[in-house]
């Protein structure tokens, strides 16, 4: 089975990504593999908040953020109620059809 998501980059450009549902990766890893520039300084431990994304559509179907993730989101001045850390979102069926906007820090 394939999962389809839409990713909007910092310039507002959108792209569809088709991801096999059994790859066992986080959204952060998929975005990095798809050549999006995300720092992901901590490598996916919810410790750096540089993988910040805004869920524009389909957020209600994703699992809830745990305390550690919410804690890190609190350190981001530009986070809103639809903010998530991409490294804490595992690729699975619940993500199908979701739209993400990349907000995290880049290399410069």
């Amino acid at each position, binding site marked *: 089975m394939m999962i389809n998501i839409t990713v909007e980059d910092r310039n507002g450009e959108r792209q569809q990504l088709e991801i096999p549902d059994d790859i066992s990766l986080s959204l952060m890893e998929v975005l990095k593999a798809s050549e999006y520039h995300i720092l992901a300084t901590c490598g996916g431990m919810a*410790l750096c908040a*540089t993988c910040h994304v805004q869920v524009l559509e389909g957020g209600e179907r994703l699992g809830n953020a745990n305390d550690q993730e919410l*804690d890190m989101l609190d350190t981001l*001045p530009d986070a*809103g109620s639809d903010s998530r850390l991409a490294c804490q979102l595992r690729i699975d069926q619940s993500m199908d059809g979701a739209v993400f906007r990349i907000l995290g820090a880049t290399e410069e």
Partner: protein
Amino acid sequence: MEMISTDICIIGAGPVGLFAVFEAGLLKMRCHLMDALPQVGGQLSEIYPHKPIYDIPGYPTVKAQELVDNLLDQIDPFKPTFTLGERVEQITRQEDQSFIVTTNEHTKVHCKVIVIAGGLGCFEPRKPTIERLEDFEGRGVAYMVKNPELFRNKQVVLAGGGDSALDWTIFLSEVAEKVTLVHRGDTFRGAPDSAEKVFNLAKEGKINLLLKSNVVRIGGNGHLKEVFIADQANEVTALEADHLIPLFGLSPKLGPIAEWGLNIDKSAIVVNTEDYSTNVPGIYAIGDINTYPGKLKLILCGFHEAALMCHSAFKFVYPDQRLSFKYTTVNGVNAF
């Protein structure tokens, strides 16, 4: 101000900068360490002090902070000196080829060799996007509390929901005339007793707690005078304020390193892998800050780079001496 004088000035006191002191000490070179953070340890102390690390040779597992503490013990015999809490801004070359390193607080260090162990760059406060915020920096807007007395009998607005926002709200409630805490959420995940204290202070009317709110605008003439806060319904109210302290944690930025005339590729300094020298003689770069074909950002790789760097730096510190390589098992560690 008195000038600090040393053989090697190490910019960045992360694990790699710390270990470089040991390798330099074995070759009788003295070091001065500088870091923008108030504590040593770089990413280990700032981002993951309590996480176990599994790939340090000889340690099946070691907590990040423990590794930093051990490194400090290991370098103690070589009596390194420190300038912490200051960002290195400028390096200038002297006629005799030595350098002077200057910080944002005007501390000056005179040295024969510069080692940049700056990791991912300077840890700097995350800034909210508020128009003209930067115009008011140092004129009412600050991102950390250095001297609490500055806020005595003033009207202070803090923004943020993490531990430091809670702690400073509690602290300043005793000092300032009026304290307002603005938080985007309606709960706090910081230390539970700090959160409870803040809610109690609000109940007792000792602080003004604005939840589900954001600072959207600031104003003043030369110095901050007003802070505009939007609530959940997007209604904006103005609040008189002498100080605004946004507290949203720290994030690393390459910062001034980019302006020192070094070859930079994607926010990292290009080095020669023979000795981790940069394009400027006498300046080396080790650890996460450097780049070369095959580079891995690992602590253990940084340690290796530190050893090779020191053997090359020796010629700048002792130009008339020949270096003979010795194991530590031969002579042990001869303290300064």
